């Protein structure tokens, strides 16, 4: 493979969503030669789908807000399984990361005083989300994209990395192919930042795009890194349900933040029946109090529609199972009777547009039908909180692909801030590591040959299975056996079935040639989806309790013993080995924040 295209950088960032772009900007500003490699065109990453906003305790709307309150909300939202240090850094640094976006040209909605406006979201004590209507993700990605372009950072678009390369125990670079031509490319780089997002495409009903195939999770595992919290998958409570072709597309939590409420077929605001002991103190127990809260957060408690996402998703699931569903198997999300048509169109323009165009529903007049959709994976690469480095020297991870920050459940709005805070940190420390090395690691020719052979395998035979069929089957397996409600028998079955996929995935056949061939691309992505699916199933079987984004029908309660442990996954042979590991101990001064009553 001597003719392979080669590029040398200090830092290579894989992924061009919020965390990848922020990491690349930082690495560049630290003086590192930096490249971004991404599967889609620049500016199309899944971050554009984020709607609600960026959580940051700026205190622009409620001056009582500060990083301690945000930290506390985040830890409680994650049912205390978050890495306390990540949650602390996140809450402390998010405001600066938002201000920085503004200085780079982002135009957030404003308060009357001309400051950045902040909106309410589930699990947040105060209105905290900086936003632009309901297209905040687009604003963020455009701002970062324009910043990266103006700095002259090299971007390799529509280029997929299939393998990380190492020299001994440390990172030496990455191998991939250009989607356009199918030709191979090798990046020599002592530091690689994974910013590849999540794993949603392993599920049938998902808000995620085609890119979300767990690439970074799998690349990290194969390179010797560990993953934590893979059993925790966030099913966003409000995905579209009708018509079938839009099933799973996201409806922003802002609808509830702006006053929208959930009702069942009996027209009952059922969330009042699902307030768990854990959140009782801080949640309104009457419709009157809940409605007063929108105008006065200090003297009233939060409406139960704004409980964390895991709580709301489970409640919707229960209502549907109890036979109180909307006509197409969801529940009703009503903003039409709660806010004026003018307000809805101004505050939720893209939701209005999405329902009008895709479902013939005018949300200013009728309720939406909603049901949970696979949205986000809390699990990811185990990293050092301060540096974002994995246990493999030179390998960093930030954003959804990293684990620990959100514990067992992520609060809405904490993703965009996570991308910025840890994207910056990953870029900064990757640059320091790369530029501080005495000698650059070397890539072995044999590794490149091996990576090339693996990538071309789907062209070798024409009698194998259709990769699209294998993918659809895998999605069905994960949806039915590892979905929102889990039990031992089904998880065991999932693990058995996944062993069968280990035979099927390497035996797919693709038609056509290497030029822009989605069938081939999918055949390679399947390896990643299979590996992360196994992590998920094994960790979910191991955790015999219910907590956050992991609900066991056979163990419906949270178990305090499990509340002190993470499950760690590592690659072993062609499979995954898991082990429990104690949570890092929170310092006393932070523990104190949880002793005070919900202020």
């Amino acid at each position: 493979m001597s003719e392979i295209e080669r590029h040398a950088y200090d830092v290579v960032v894989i992924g061009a969503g919020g965390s990848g772009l922020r990491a690349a900007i930082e690495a560049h500003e630290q003086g590192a030669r930096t490249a971004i490699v991404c599967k889609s065109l620049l500016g199309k990453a899944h971050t554009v789908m984020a709607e609600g906003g960026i959580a940051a305790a700026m205190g622009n709307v409620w001056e009582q807000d500060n990083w301690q309150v945000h930290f506390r909300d985040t830890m409680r939202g994650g049912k205390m399984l978050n890495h306390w240090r990540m949650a602390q850094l996140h809450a402390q640094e998010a405001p600066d990361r938002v201000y920085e976006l503004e200085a780079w040209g982002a135009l957030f909605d404003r308060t009357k005083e001309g400051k950045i406006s902040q909106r309410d979201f589930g699990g947040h004590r105060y209105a905290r989300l900086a936003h632009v209507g309901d297209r905040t993700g687009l604003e963020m990605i455009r701002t970062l994209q324009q910043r990266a372009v103006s700095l002259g950072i090299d971007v390799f678009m529509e280029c997929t990395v299939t393998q990380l390369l190492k020299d001994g125990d440390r990172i030496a670079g990455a191998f991939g192919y250009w989607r356009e031509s199918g030709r191979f490319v090798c990046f020599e780089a002592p530091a690689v930042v994974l910013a590849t997002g999540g794993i949603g495409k392993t599920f049938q009903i998902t808000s995620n795009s085609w890119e979300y195939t767990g690439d970074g999770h799998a690349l990290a595992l194969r390179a010797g890194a560990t993953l934590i919290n893979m059993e925790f998958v966030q099913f966003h409570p409000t995905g579209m349900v009708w018509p079938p072709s839009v099933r799973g597309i996201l409806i922003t939590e802002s609808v509830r933040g702006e006053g929208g409420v959930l009702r069942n077929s009996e027209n009952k605001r059922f969330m009042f029946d699902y307030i768990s002991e854990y959140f009782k103190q801080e949640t309104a127990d009457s419709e009157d109090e809940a409605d007063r809260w929108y105008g006065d957060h200090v003297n009233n408690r939060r409406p139960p529609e704004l409980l964390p996402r895991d709580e709301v998703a489970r409640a919707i699931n229960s209502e549907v199972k109890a036979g109180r569903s909307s006509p197409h198997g969801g529940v009703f999300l009503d903003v039409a009777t709660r806010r004026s048509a003018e307000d809805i169109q101004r505050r939720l323009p893209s939701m209005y547009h999405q329902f009008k165009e895709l479902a013939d529903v005018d949300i200013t007049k009728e309720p939406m039908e909603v049901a949970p959709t696979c949205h986000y994976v809390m699990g990811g690469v185990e990293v050092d909180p301060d540096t974002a480095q994995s246990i493999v020297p030179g390998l960093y991870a930030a954003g959804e692909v990293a684990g620990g920050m959100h514990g067992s459940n992520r609060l809405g709005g904490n993703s965009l801030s996570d991308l910025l805070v840890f994207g910056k940190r990953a870029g900064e420390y990757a640059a320091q590591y790369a530029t501080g090395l005495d000698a650059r690691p070397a890539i072995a020719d044999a590794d490149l040959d091996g990576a090339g052979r693996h990538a071309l395998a789907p062209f070798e035979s024409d009698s194998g299975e259709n990769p699209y069929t294998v993918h659809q089957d895998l999605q069905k397996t994960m949806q039915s056996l590892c979905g929102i409600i889990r039990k031992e028998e089904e998880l065991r079955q999932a693990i058995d079935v996944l062993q069968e996929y280990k035979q099927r995935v390497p035996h797919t056949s693709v038609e056509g040639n290497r030029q822009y061939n989605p069938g081939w691309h999918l055949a390679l992505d399947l390896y990643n989806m299979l590996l992360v699916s196994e992590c998920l199933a094994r960790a979910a079987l191991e955790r015999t309790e219910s907590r956050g984004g992991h609900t066991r029908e056979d163990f419906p309660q949270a178990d305090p013993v499990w509340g002190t442990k993470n499950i760690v996954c590592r690659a072993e042979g062609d499979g995954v080995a898991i082990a429990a590991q104690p949570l890092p101990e929170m310092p006393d001064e932070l523990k104190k924040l949880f002793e005070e009553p919900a202020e």
Partner: protein
Amino acid sequence: MSYEATFKVWRGNADGGAFQDYTVAVNEGEVVLDIIHRIQATQAGDLAVRWNCKAGKCGSCSAEVNGRPRLMCMTRMSTFTEQETVTVNPIRTFPIIKDLVTDVSYNYEKAAQIQAFTPPADVKPGEFRMQQVDVERSQEFRKCIECYLCQNVCHVIRDHEENKPKFAGPRFLMRIAELEMHPYDTADRRKLAQEDFGLGFCNITKCCTEVCPENIHITDNALIPMKERVVDTKYDPLGFLWRKFKSPDSKRSRG
């Protein structure tokens, strides 16, 4: 509910190609992109198409459907009769890579030529104060999802390859307008707009506005005001003197 539809999809690459016929199932509520995906999964595994969000937010799946520039994810099959043949071909203004995928690098080159947002040096992050009414003008343009349908239909470059070096298309003239109308921006991109980006080529036929899936008033709110600003610079000697003596950050309107 379901029926079999006839699709004609352009297949080929830079060396040439042709429409190919597919008979494919269509279910209730589906959009053109669903059908393209079904063709891909069951009949043509190597059919090249770009897509990401499937909700009209990323601007990846632009194509010409029955001759009309559209996002495939936002084009519902119910807009066609069951008997109607649906023809899908790549957007025409950019070179073909393969099937429905075109080489849109022209757009990234133009984007890179625009001077970034340039706030006054003495305003620190966190100190910006702007009124909602003052940011709304630029916010409208920042709704752009970069689907490039406006670029595709603009007659200056559609079928006029020779104009591409001196014309940036509505998307990037609008980007200039967006920056020029930002309350805190201090740079002056009028010369860039007129001389390098070819603002004068635009004769406000509004084709761009008509196809914009975000319903941005590109012509009325971005291009015409930009033309006025450029004219002010070029033919207004008093205005020229005025600008010469006023402070660089006087564009700002603080709240």
